[in-house]
């Protein structure tokens, strides 16, 4: 597999919530090291698409292949695949009963059988990277939203995933905290991580994205590099969206 091979290959997937069609024959490929930003109005299916990639939502038709593993193949261990996919949520979802350090070491110790002090060393290095080393002993409630999100990113990285998925990581934050989280994400992008990011931060999209994907009503309407997408969108729907948002 060379760098140009897609590490995520989504083909024709559809997802219904009851009778409501949330994803309508969506196909998308993401190559190693690529950064894809997903945009779209509320309810367009962005989160559903992202969550389908690690099977937090099950799809009704189509295939998803991550790093060579078919998510729905019998015999595939979804938990192994999920270890390769780090996920960051809008609401942080840190374990409230664990300290910051424990949040980072829990999965490596339990799932990778890493020795506790090795896990702690890795964790401290990651916390340092996101600027949270001094809060290693704190509990999540003692942190601001921005701090929690940085810890959440570090927690996902502690499992050494090949891909990182972000679902509106900054929308639950007060404006003054958005920057600190975006900085961490930009650093991560520079380090060459494969990233799929749902966000409304257009600045981030312009700066970091290799490709912008625009969704509406459960379908991908337009896919383009950010320069093209923002300055020269092809579809009327895209133009309307950009007008509203900018």
């Amino acid at each position: 597999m060379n760098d140009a091979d897609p590490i995520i290959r989504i083909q024709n997937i559809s997802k219904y919530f009851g009778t409501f069609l949330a994803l309508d024959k969506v196909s998308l490929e993401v190559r190693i090291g690529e950064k894809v930003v997903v945009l779209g109005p509320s309810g367009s299916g962005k989160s559903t698409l992202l969550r389908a990639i690690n099977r937090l939502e099950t799809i009704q038709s189509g295939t998803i292949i991550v790093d060579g593993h078919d998510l729905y193949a019998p015999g595939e261990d979804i938990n192994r695949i999920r270890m390769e996919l780090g996920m960051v949520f809008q609401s942080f979802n840190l374990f409230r009963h664990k300290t910051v350090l424990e949040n980072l070491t829990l999965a490596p110790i339990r799932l990778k059988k890493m020795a506790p002090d090795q896990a702690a060393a890795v964790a401290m290095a990651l916390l340092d990277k996101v600027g949270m080393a001094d809060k290693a002993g704190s509990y999540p409630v003692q942190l601001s939203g921005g701090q929690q999100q940085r810890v959440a990113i570090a927690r996902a990285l502690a499992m050494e995933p090949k891909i990182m998925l972000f679902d509106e990581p900054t929308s639950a934050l007060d404006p003054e905290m958005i920057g600190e989280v975006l900085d961490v994400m930009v650093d991560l992008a520079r380090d060459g991580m494969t990233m799929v990011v749902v966000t409304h931060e257009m600045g981030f999209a312009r700066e970091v994205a290799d490709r912008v994907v625009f969704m509406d009503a459960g379908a991908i309407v337009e896919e383009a590099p950010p320069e093209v997408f923002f300055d020269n969108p092809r579809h009327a729907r895209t133009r309307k969206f950009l007008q509203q948002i900018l």
Partner: protein
Amino acid sequence: MADRDTGVEKIEIGDGAAIPVPEDRGLLSAWWIALCGTIGLLIVLPLVKPDPYADILRFVPDGILVTFEVTIASISLALVVGLITGLGRISSNRFFNLLASLYVEVVRGIPLLVQLFYIYFALGRFVRVPDIVAAVIAMAFCYGAYMGEVFRAGIKSIDFGQTEASLSLGFNHRQTMMYGILPQAWRTILPPVGNEFIALLKDTSLVSILAVSDILRRGREYASESFNYFETYTMIALIYLLITLVLSRLISTMEHRLSHYERR
């Protein structure tokens, strides 16, 4: 507890002793007065009138032990049953879910005393177990249903995001429950578990009917021989009261301790 969505504030009164909290001052001073009064009477009565009060105090202590044994064994078993039931009640597997619901519904519909008799005699038909074991099984069977609802509510009170985060890290459902959800649910669960513990301790008085020699049985034996009914039951009531008052305070303290990670 069924999740009712009627938009009205819900009142549910547990049947343990009232657990005093600093916010409820009336209850707190009542707690102190009750405690001091109970201890006072337990000391003064035997001194003033050794026959029968001191006699009674000499007669019942092994009953207290039995009461505690039955209570602790029952609650431990009930916690296990309750955990399984609670997991069944939230399970997406329709069969387990229905089974757990049915268990809860049936157990709650039958008086504990009837269940005690029933399990005691029914068990006796098929297996030969000591009566104290039969009593514990019966108590645990009954309380397991209540504990099941406690666990269910406790688990449901934990934000679903915690589950998703855990799954996305690669934990399976069992691990998620074990490392992520239950340790947090425990905190919500502890107050009602404490409540059930005290309620169960009080309900162990029912096993006296099955000839298990608990506090009450000891008292009844004493009374039936000495004819000092009034005095005996006074002492029995005071002993129970002392135990539940102390326990209820312990539980409220423990509850406070357990929530350390929610303090800023």
